[in-house]
């Protein structure tokens, strides 16, 4: 005999520890089974796109820091590439290498936080995140050495980077890279074959490759479904074609695959930084920034430039009318779009898996709401 149950509406957030910021989900439940979910955005909306229309191109770089504050360097980078394309600015060779090094280190920071908090959301409170936090802190020390900031860097500038790397930076990065492999193995030993982790993540939060493409997902979430697409390789912007790296893909598009893709990308980023440092050593010292006017006036026109940020495709669409401020400044935020696919991934699953799936998407609410 089937027992008729009533549906229950449950409000999760905006101030819930597992929403990673201020985000709300209206969930319709049948017992513990998720029947429907509607995301509610906007609690951290600051109108950055509108603010940018009243500021110069250079003044907008710090705004990009505040998009995805977990990976500010990557946001700086995406924006500067877009302005450089719009204004046809060439970047010195040395600056290109420095940008790749800091962006890949930033990807490592992002993935450490993503995996750490994901495991935290699964209920392994404290230990895994602290292992990740420890390594991340070393990288923040390196960024502090580089530009004096640990979080919001404003380091990558239009035409290059704000200043050259200090002499003690490269040995410090090399030391980090040497030590990191051992720590990575430690993390893998702790988590990879963990029975509870696998029971909670394999087969939960599944999305197929076709659905992921249809919902415009990108980044590790898309690759976890088996779609072999990485803008670093497939668009090969900047100097990414000079490095050998694998694009890590999953098979099933479940929570476990998303976690595995990020762990794999940590090693690939490690390898790219190593290669970039070796190639940088062979370069003669030179300028790290092309002189550009502070009041830059790109020619009239528009440009869409996408980069592979740690969370996915970060696109900047900039329209110039020839003045000192952009006429339109739009950010294609990867976590906003990945988050809209949450509904696809959780309907029919258990409510406990909803929290795990939400954590596996890896979002930063500042970037979602803009």
């Amino acid at each position, binding site marked *: 005999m089937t027992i008729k149950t009533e549906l229950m509406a449950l409000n999760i957030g905006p101030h819930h520890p597992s929403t990673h910021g201020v985000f709300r989900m209206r969930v319709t439940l049948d017992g513990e089974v998720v029947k429907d979910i509607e995301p509610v955005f*906007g609690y951290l*909306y600051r109108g950055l796109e509108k603010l940018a229309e009243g500021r110069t191109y250079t003044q907008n770089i710090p705004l990009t820091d505040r998009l995805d504050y977990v990976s500010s360097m990557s946001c700086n980078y995406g924006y500067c590439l877009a302005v450089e394309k719009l204004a046809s600015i060439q970047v010195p060779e040395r600056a290109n290498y420095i940008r790749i090094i800091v962006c890949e280190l930033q990807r490592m920071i992002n993935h450490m936080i993503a995996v750490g908090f994901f495991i935290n959301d699964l209920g392994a409170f404290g230990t895994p995140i602290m292992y990740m936090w420890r390594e991340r802190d070393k990288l923040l020390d390196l960024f502090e050495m580089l530009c004096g900031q640990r979080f919001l860097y404003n380091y990558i500038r239009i035409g290059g980077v704000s200043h050259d790397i200090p002499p003690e930076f490269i040995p410090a990065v090399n030391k980090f890279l040497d030590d990191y492999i051992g720590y990575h193995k430690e993390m893998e030993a702790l988590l990879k074959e963990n029975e509870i982790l696998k029971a909670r993540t394999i087969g939960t939060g599944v999305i197929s490759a076709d659905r992921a493409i249809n*919902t415009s997902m990108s980044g590790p979430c898309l690759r976890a479904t088996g779609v072999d697409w990485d803008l670093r390789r497939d668009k090969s912007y900047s100097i990414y074609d000079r490095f050998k790296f694998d694009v890590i893909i999953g098979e099933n598009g479940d929570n476990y695959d998303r976690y595995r893709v990020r762990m794999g990308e940590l090693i690939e980023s490690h390898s790219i930084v190593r290669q970039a440092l070796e190639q940088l050593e062979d370069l003669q010292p030179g300028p790290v920034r092309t002189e550009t006017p502070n009041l830059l006036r790109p020619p009239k026109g528009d440009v869409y430039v996408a980069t592979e940020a740690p969370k996915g495709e970060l696109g900047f669409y900039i329209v110039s009318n020839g003045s000192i401020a952009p006429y339109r400044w*739009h950010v*294609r935020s990867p976590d*906003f779009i990945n988050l809209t696919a949450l509904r696809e991934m959780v309907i029919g699953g258990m409510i406990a898996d909803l929290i795990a799936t939400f954590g596996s998407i890896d979002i930063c609410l500042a970037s979602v709401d803009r």
Partner: protein
Amino acid sequence: MGLKELKGKELASRIEDHFPGSVVERSDISVTINSHTIVNVMRFLKETPDFDLSYLNNITAIDCLNSCEVMYRITSMRKKHALIIKTKLCKQSDAELPSIAHLWQGARFFERDICNLFGIRFTDNSTAEQVAWWESFDKHVFEKNHTSLQS
């Protein structure tokens, strides 16, 4: 080999062959399509194997004072090429554009965002709820003539 930008001028003639009168403007990097045929053209670009533009990267709008422009960025992962499609709308209080959410589910939230910020309504988009604002808020703050919330 990197991602190739399709030449707007070449593509425009292919679109014009299938949908006469649909191309309004063409440039090196984009094609502007008549707003009435935008859904058919997008379906054509998505489903024709030659183009295979099956991944929707982005949709956004630009307020051009007397008119509004909506920009679509689409990519083919298999053929490794991408394109910008635009469409223009007269700016009036009941500006409407057909939704492409039935072709790409990802379009749903892009369109909702544009609807809230620019006041462009998308017909057939199942939800027109606010994305970033509260429910009763009816101003469109990204319009160039928007001055303050009190006005």
